[in-house]
C-alpha cells in the first residue's frame, strides 16, 4: 500500500513517501561530523505548548518523536556547539551556525494595501510579496553572491527565504545584522509616516536596481490595484510622504482636478519631474519620487528574524496550524505566477492521494519498487520539485568540497523536511519514510 491509513486512539495516522530521504542521506553522512544531531528543533504541541531545544541523533529518532508527540508546528533553529537536548545548560553551549533567513509578513503591508488587512491575503497583495521576493532574491545573489536560496510560502500570510550557502550559515550575529540592515530600507514605526529617506545625492546601485524593478510594475500594482490615490484617506496618507509643506499644498490642490488613482499619480510624477528639471527640488528631496515608490513596494523585512543566530523559523512543509495549508517552496522566478490560494491544505492532499489510489487500484499488484511516491500524486508536486532541485544543487557543492578536502567534515544545511500536524479534529500525522509508504 502506498499510503497507509490506520486508526489509533480514534485518530488517523498517515504515512507516505517524502523527499526526506535526500536530507537523510545528509543526516547520515553527518552523524560522523555531529552536525545533524546538534541542530535544534522545536515543537509546538496542542494548547500552545512550546518545546524548545529538541535534538535528534538521526532521522529515525526524529520521526519517532514526531509520531509520539504529534506537533502542530515544527521550527528549525541553529546548530549548536553541543547537542541541545542534552547539554543546553553547559556554560559553553552556544549556537554555531544557522541558515541566513528572511521573513516577510503581509501584516506589515497593511498601511500600503487596500485589498485586505491582517492575516488575509489575495492575488493583489501577493504581487507585493512577489516583488519583495524578486528584489531580495536579486540582491542576495548579485550583491552577496549567495546561490542556494530556498523560498517558501509560509502557509498563511508570509514568505520565508532560507539562504543555505556555507558562508551564509557561518555568519555571526553582527554580520547577519549588517546584511539585514543593508537590505532594510524602511524604518520608522506608527508615528512616522515617511519611512524611506534616501540621503546623499546619488542612489546606491542596489537601491537603483530595486527601484527599477518596482517602477516596471508600480502603476499597475500600487496605483491601480491598491488604489493608493483612490480615496481621500489614501491620498492623505500619500501626501504625508512629502515633507515639503508648500509642495504638498500645491499637490493637494492639483490632485483635486483628477478622479482616478492613475491620473493622480501621473499628475504627481509630472509635477515632481517638472520641479526637478527646473532645479526647484531641494537637495534633500532629489529622490522624493523614488522614496515614495520604495515605501509602497520595497520588501518589508522583519529583520530581527534575520539578525538572530538562535532565532527559530518554521520548517518548510509544515502545515500551518490556522489555515491547514502546507508551507510550500516556490521558485523565485515564478513568484509572480504563484497563487497562495492554490496551495493545498493537508486534507486536500490526503483526498488527492486516496483519489489517485482509487483510480489506479487495478495496478496495485505491482511490486514495491515501481510504486509511485505519494507526494507525486498531489498538488504539492511543484513545490517538491522546486525543493528537490534546490537540494540537488546544494549537494553538488558538497561533493565538490568533499573531493577537495577529503576527510574534512561535510557540512549540511540540515533542513529537515517534515510534515506533521493535527488538523481540525482529526489527529493526523504525516510522517516521513525513505521509500514509498511504509505502514506505521
Amino acid at each position, binding site marked *: 500500500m502506498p499510503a497507509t491509513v490506520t486508526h489509533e486512539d480514534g485518530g488517523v495516522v498517515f504515512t507516505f513517501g517524502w523527499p526526506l530521504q535526500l536530507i537523510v542521506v545528509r543526516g547520515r553522512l553527518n552523524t560522523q561530523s555531529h552536525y545533524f544531531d546538534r541542530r535544534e528543533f522545536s515543537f509546538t504541541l496542542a494548547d*500552545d505548548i512550546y518545546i524548545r531545544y529538541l535534538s535528534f541523533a538521526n532521522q529515525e529518532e526524529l520521526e519517532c518523536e514526531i509520531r509520539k508527540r504529534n506537533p502542530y508546528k515544527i521550527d528549525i533553529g541553529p546548530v549548536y556547539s553541543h547537542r541541545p537536548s542534552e547539554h543546553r545548560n553547559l556554560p*559553553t553551549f552556544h549556537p554555531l551556525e544557522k541558515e541566513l533567513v528572511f521573513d516577510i509578513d503581509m501584516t506589515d503591508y497593511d498601511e500600503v494595501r487596500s485589498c485586505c488587512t491582517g492575516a488575509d491575503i489575495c492575488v493583489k497583495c501577493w504581487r507585493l510579496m512577489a516583488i519583495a521576493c524578486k528584489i531580495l532574491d536579486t540582491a542576495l545573489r548579485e*550583491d552577496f553572491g549567495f546561490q542556494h536560496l530556498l523560498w517558501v510560502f509560509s502557509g498563511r500570510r508570509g514568505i520565508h527565504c532560507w539562504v543555505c550557502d556555507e558562508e551564509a550559515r557561518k*555568519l555571526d550575529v553582527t554580520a547577519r545584522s549588517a546584511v539585514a*540592515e*543593508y537590505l532594510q530600507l524602511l524604518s520608522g514605526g*506608527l508615528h*512616522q509616516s515617511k519611512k524611506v529617506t534616501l540621503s546623499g545625492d546619488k542612489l546606491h546601485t542596489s537601491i537603483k536596481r530595486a527601484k527599477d524593478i518596482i517602477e516596471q510594475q508600480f502603476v499597475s500594482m500600487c496605483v491601480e490595484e491598491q488604489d493608493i490615490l483612490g480615496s481621500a484617506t489614501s491620498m492623505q496618507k500619500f501626501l504625508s510622504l512629502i515633507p515639503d509643506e508648500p509642495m504638498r499644498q500645491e499637490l493637494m490642490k492639483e490632485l483635486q482636478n483628477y478622479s482616478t488613482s492613475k491620473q493622480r499619480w501621473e499628475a504627481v510624477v509630472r509635477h515632481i519631474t517638472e520641479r526637478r528639471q527646473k532645479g526647484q527640488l531641494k537637495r534633500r528631496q532629489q529622490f522624493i519620487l523614488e522614496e515614495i515608490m520604495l515605501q509602497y513596494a520595497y520588501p518589508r523585512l522583519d529583520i530581527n528574524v534575520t539578525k538572530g543566530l538562535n532565532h527559530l523559523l518554521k520548517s518548510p512543509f509544515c502545515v500551518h496550524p490556522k489555515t491547514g495549508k502546507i508551507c510550500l517552496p516556490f521558485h523565485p522566478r515564478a513568484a509572480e505566477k504563484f497563487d497562495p490560494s492554490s496551495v493545498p491544505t493537508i486534507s486536500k492532499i490526503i483526498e488527492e492521494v486516496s483519489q489517485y489510489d482509487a483510480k489506479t487500484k487495478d495496478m496495485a499488484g505491482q511490486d514495491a519498487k515501481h510504486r509511485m511516491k505519494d507526494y507525486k500524486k498531489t498538488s504539492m508536486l511543484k513545490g517538491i520539485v522546486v525543493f528537490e532541485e534546490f537540494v540537488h544543487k546544494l549537494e553538488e557543492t558538497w561533493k565538490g568540497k568533499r573531493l577537495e578536502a577529503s576527510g574534512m567534515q561535510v557540512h549540511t544545511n540540515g533542513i529537515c523536511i517534515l510534515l506533521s500536524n493535527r488538523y481540525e479534529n482529526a489527529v493526523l500525522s504525516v510522517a516521513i519514510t525513505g521509500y514509498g509508504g511504509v505502514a506505521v
Partner: protein
Amino acid sequence: MEYSRRRKSVPSTQSVQTGSLVEMYPIDLQLYKVPPISSISLAEFEDLAQERLRILRAVDDINSRGLNKHSEECKGALTAELKRLGLKGFAKLINGTGCGNTESELRLRRRDHISHFILRLAYCRSEELRRWFIARELDLFRIRFSSLSAEAIQRFMQINNLKYEAVSEAEKSLLRECLFESSVIMPSVASVDAHVFYRVPYTDVQDLVRCRKVYLSGGSAYVPSTDLIAVLSTVFRTNLAHGMAIMARSLPALESDERIFQLLKNLHHSYVGEEYGSLKNSSAGSIQLDQLDLLSRHSFPPCMKKLSEHLRSNHHMRHGGRMQYGLFLKGIGLSLEDSLHYWKDGFSQKTDADKFEKQYSYNIRHNYGAVGKRANYAPYSCMKIIMSNVGPDEAHGCPFKHSDLSHLKQQLLAWNVPVAGINKVVEYVTQGHFQLACGKYFQITHGVQFEVAINHPNQYFVESQKVFNSKHDVKAAATGVPVGEILHTSDMEDVWGDDKDVESINVDIHQEVAI
C-alpha cells in the same frame, strides 16, 4: 600619569632593555593579537585594570554626548576628558602619530597592551559585558587610528599581515559608474579614477555594508582607500570577539587564583552599578499599581509615557514596545505580580486572560528573570532606544527620533507643553540631538532651571521623582509632614497635578524663554 613623567627624564636611547619593547611595540596602535607575557605585581595589575576601565568609561561618556564618532571634535573631547581624569599618558597615546620609539612611548604601549588584556579577563564572562567592552574598545581603536600618519598605517598593515587586493584599472573602468554611485565618499565619477579600490570580503566591512556606503558584487565589497578604517574596524572586532570567546572558555582555570578573581568580579560589579537593572533589587515593589497612571503622566519620560498611552488606547503592544516599556517598569520598581496584572489589564479588551497567559505572560516573567535563562535584564538606555529599529505598526522607540516633526509637535501640545517650549525642543530634534531634546522637555515640564542630561529613561524617572520630592520637602518642612521615598498620589496632585498649577508654570517657562 606619574609613571610616564618619571620615565620621560630618561634619555631615549635604545638600551638592551628597551630593544625588546621596540620589537614588541613598534607602533602606537595594536590589534592585541598576542597576550602579554611578563610578571607584574598585583598592585600594578589592579592599577592597570582601574585605569583602563576609566578610559573606556570616558569613551562611553563621550559617546553619549552624541558627537560624531569620526570627528576631530570627538577626539578632542576625549583627550580633554582623559586629561581631566589624570590620564595624560593615554591622552597622548590617542593622539600619537604612531612611529615614535622613545622609552616613554614604548612603556605606554606596554601599559595599553597589558591593561587591555586585564579587562578582557573581566569582561569576557557574559555576552552583555563582552558587547559593551568590544564596542568601547572599537571606538577607541577608531579614534586612535585616525591619528596615525600614512607611514604608520603602512606599518600597521604590514605588521598585522593585512593584504588586500587592489582592483585593476580595467575592472575599475568597467565598474566606474557603480563605484561612483555606491561609494558615498566619492564626490564625482572622476574621483573614482583618482582612488585605489580594494576588493574585500563584505564580512570585513560590515559597517560600510550596513549603511550601504560601498559597492557590493558577488560577496565582495569595493572599498576606496579612504574607507580603510572600516575594514580595519571589522578585523579588530572579529579578532577581539574571537579572543574573548576563547578566554571565556578558559575562565574557570584562571579563576582559581582568588586574589585576581575577586578583583575582576568587583570590576564587573562596578560596571553594573551604572545600569538601572540593579535598581530592581532595592526598589522592587516600591511602586504600586494604582500609582502607575499618575506617575506615567508626571514622571515617565516621553518614550514611556507614549507607550503607556498606546497600551491604554490600543489594548495591545507589539514585542519591541513590550520589551522597552516592560523593562522600564521593572526598573522603576514595579513587582512581577503587579507587572503581570498591569499588562493583562492593558490587553484585556482584545485578549482574554487565557490567551494572555499563553502568549504574553512568559515574556514578562522572562524580563524579570523568573523563567528561562533567569537573567536579570537591564532596562534599555536612551542610546539603545534611539538606535533601535522600529518597524511599521510598532510604537516603541524614542519619540524625538522616531516621530514625524508634525506628529511630535501635536503630541507635545497634547501633553500641555507651551508653544515656545515646543519650539525649543523641536530645534534640538532637527539638529539630531534627541537626548538634549528630552532634557529640554524635562526642564520645561518640571519647571526647573537647570539642564538635565538624560541618558536613560529610568534616570529620567529618578530625576523627576527627585524634583517632586524636593518640592514635597519644601512643603513638608512647612507643614511638618514626614517625607516618603515615593510621593503619595495626593501630594503629587498638589504639587503639580491640576491645570491651574500647570498654567502658572507655563508662565514661568515663557519668562525663562524670553530671557
